[in-house]
């Protein structure tokens, strides 16, 4: 319970009303020991009947029933275990394809693709901005050919794939559909998820091509097109993960992510879509940090808030529109470079919290991720950790085992209340897009990150192996994955070879049609699909967006 006992000054970091001045966080002398969650929610030693709300039963619902606080499905994991989905991608498409086959052989039940920085930012491997970045942080995909190589030998109607891609997501979605067609599959047969959540990019992950509004428009294009054509596809993964990793507290993660979700639904409704036509395919993505009970409460509060918002604010009639389905990933930011084997224990506890919180799918981090992308051995331990939780601990046998606990219900209520306060404030600002343009969530997160760091440095927050129980044997040599430096040259040559050998007239026609569509309010998905099939590269299509919508530069504030 290292994180439970802190000595921070008497303020509540998660509360919007708290004075977020660095002077306040820095100058004060250590106060009496205080017991609080990582988000700063004060904790009692004992919770009793007196903490129970009279309307608890109504606020909980039965598992599988509104407001889904307890679970989305009546029998929980008995019906179906969570999907064990390990995020992977490095080097060339061949390298990652090999890792995918390895993971499938080890028992993962879904794939998840990590792209490299140039791909995430909409640059081909041969662009000057890509220098030094190709294949380093994920797999390099510039062309349809790369995408075919990436999924070679993987039947896309049997394995679901998640793609962590946002700014150029529409291009990767189109490439995935095109690869499926080459396997003889219709778009409607493909199952999986594309992240395509641009609001959290501007808030936290910071990968973009254009300013916020055109990007959100393209996200809505994808939601609309997928709703009509891809019934098994999650057209967006509204993500708290990156918000949390950037420094948000659990309460802020919950609040900003749900506010993003509300923002997308509003934009879809403005376009004239019926909420029940697209809402069932909206999905979410949470971080799972160290504070065990707070994380579980976050999952439960999220389901309740979303169900209520969808029914009462947007008038959803279909129960599936009210069900917050989520992926989860253990917190990369909680891992330490010092004594890296300790990370295995952190990941196991976080994975357990995600499962007790009722996640639909889970990625467990590898112990070596503060050092580099994970080795095959480290990934295997991470996957085995999930398998141990699933098959040895027995926790999947009973739905929402903490349901009705005085403490868990009180914590869930508090998380919900804090998130709703933020959401109200964002509504008053004119909605999340305006709040993001003003830098509001960005600043809240940066303040929380700095406060957290100061707490660690003052020893008010314990990080085992770093500011307590440190040892001289930190440099335990664990093997680290090396990326072949030659990949950049080879990948650039591949892009150039595609450009040299494609049907130039067909390419030009598709690009012109796409350019014209960008100037209209048409849905761009069919045009991008044509361009991709004409072997337009990711960089070329992104350049067209830059030309049509302008480029974005974030105000540099800290």
């Amino acid at each position, binding site marked *: 319970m290292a994180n439970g006992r802190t000595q921070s000054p008497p303020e509540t970091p998660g509360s919007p009303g708290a004075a977020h001045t660095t002077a306040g966080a820095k100058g004060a002398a250590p106060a009496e020991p205080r017991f609080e969650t990582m988000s700063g929610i004060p904790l009692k030693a004992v919770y009793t009947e007196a903490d129970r709300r009279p309307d608890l039963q109504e606020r909980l619902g039965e598992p599988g029933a509104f407001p889904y606080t307890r679970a989305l499905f009546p029998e929980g994991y008995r019906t179906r275990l969570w999907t064990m989905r390990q995020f992977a991608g490095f080097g060339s498409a061949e390298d990652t394809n090999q890792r995918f086959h390895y993971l499938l052989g080890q028992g993962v039940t879904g794939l998840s693709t990590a792209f490299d920085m140039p791909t995430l930012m909409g640059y081909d491997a041969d662009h000057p901005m*890509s220098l*030094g*970045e190709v294949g*380093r942080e994920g797999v390099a995909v510039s062309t349809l050919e790369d995408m075919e190589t990436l999924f070679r030998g993987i039947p896309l109607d049997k394995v679901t794939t998640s793609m962590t891609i946002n700014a150029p997501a529409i291009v990767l979605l189109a490439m995935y559909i095109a690869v499926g067609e080459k396997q003889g599959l219709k778009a409607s047969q493909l199952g999986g998820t594309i992240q395509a959540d641009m609001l959290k990019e501007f808030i936290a*992950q*910071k990968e973009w091509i254009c300013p916020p509004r055109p990007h959100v428009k393209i996200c809505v294009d994808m939601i609309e097109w997928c709703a009509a054509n891809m019934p098994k596809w999650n057209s967006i993964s509204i993500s708290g993960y990156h918000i949390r990793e950037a420094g948000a507290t659990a309460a802020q993660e919950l609040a900003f992510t749900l506010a993003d979700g509300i923002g997308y639904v509003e934009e879809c409704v403005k376009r004239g879509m019926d909420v029940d036509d697209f809402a069932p395919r909206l999905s979410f993505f949470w971080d799972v940090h160290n504070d065990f009970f707070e994380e579980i409460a976050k999952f439960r509060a999220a389901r309740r808030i979303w169900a209520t918002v969808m029914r009462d604010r947007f008038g959803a009639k279909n129960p599936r529109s009210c069900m917050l389905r989520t992926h989860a990933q253990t917190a990369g930011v909680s891992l330490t470079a010092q004594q890296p084997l300790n990370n295995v224990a952190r990941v196991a506890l976080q994975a357990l919290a995600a499962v007790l919180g009722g996640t639909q799918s889970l990625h467990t981090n590898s112990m070596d991720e*503060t*050092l580099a992308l994970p080795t095959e051995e480290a990934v295997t331990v991470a996957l085995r950790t999930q398998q141990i939780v699933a098959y040895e601990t027995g926790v999947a046998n009973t739905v929402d085992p903490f349901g009705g606990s005085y403490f868990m219900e009180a914590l869930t209520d508090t998380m919900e209340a804090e998130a709703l306060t933020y959401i109200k404030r964002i509504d008053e600002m004119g909605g999340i897009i305006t709040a993001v343009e003003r830098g509001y969530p960005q600043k809240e997160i940066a303040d929380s990150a700095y406060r957290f*760091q100061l707490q660690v440095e003052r020893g008010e927050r314990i990080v085992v192996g770093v500011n307590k129980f440190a040892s001289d044997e930190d440099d335990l040599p664990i093997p680290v994955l090396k990326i072949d430096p030659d990949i950049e040259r080879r990948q650039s040559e591949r892009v150039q070879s595609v450009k040299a050998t494609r049907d130039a007239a067909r390419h030009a026609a598709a690009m012109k049609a796409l350019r014209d569509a960008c100037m209209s309010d048409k849905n761009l998905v069919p045009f991008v699909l044509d361009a991709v099939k004409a072997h337009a590269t990711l960089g070329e299509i992104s350049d067209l967006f830059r030309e049509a919508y302008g480029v974005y530069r974030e105000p540099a504030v800290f």
Partner: protein
Amino acid sequence: MARKIRVVVGKGGLDGHDRGAKVVASAMRDAGFEVIYTGLHQTPEMVVQAAVQEDVDVVALSILSGAHMTLFPRVWQLMRDRGLNDVLLTGGGIISKEDMEALRKLGVGDLFGPGTTTGAIVDYVRAWVAANRAGKLGLAS
């Protein structure tokens, strides 16, 4: 009164991980340094241009995307080209000990990885600038 220590905190390349850069920038500001934060997605040329314009003592580069072996040498070379011989190039991110050593041989200063306290970074910069201003490092501008 001595001139305040002036630092450019830069985010090079495509990397969007700015939590560390912002935390370090805030800590340096609270330590009394003048901090210029470049914002994201800067080319080496842009970072060095900011260093020249702002007449800084220190360039602190944050790279978590694995591109450090490309970007640090490039910034280092551009600093030589622009005559910034008496300016410290330091930084941090996900950088292996081996790579830190290779960059040190090139002339780059200490680099800081996960788990570093902001206090350690502030102390290092302060000591380096004091030594440099006292002429103890023998660096010509």
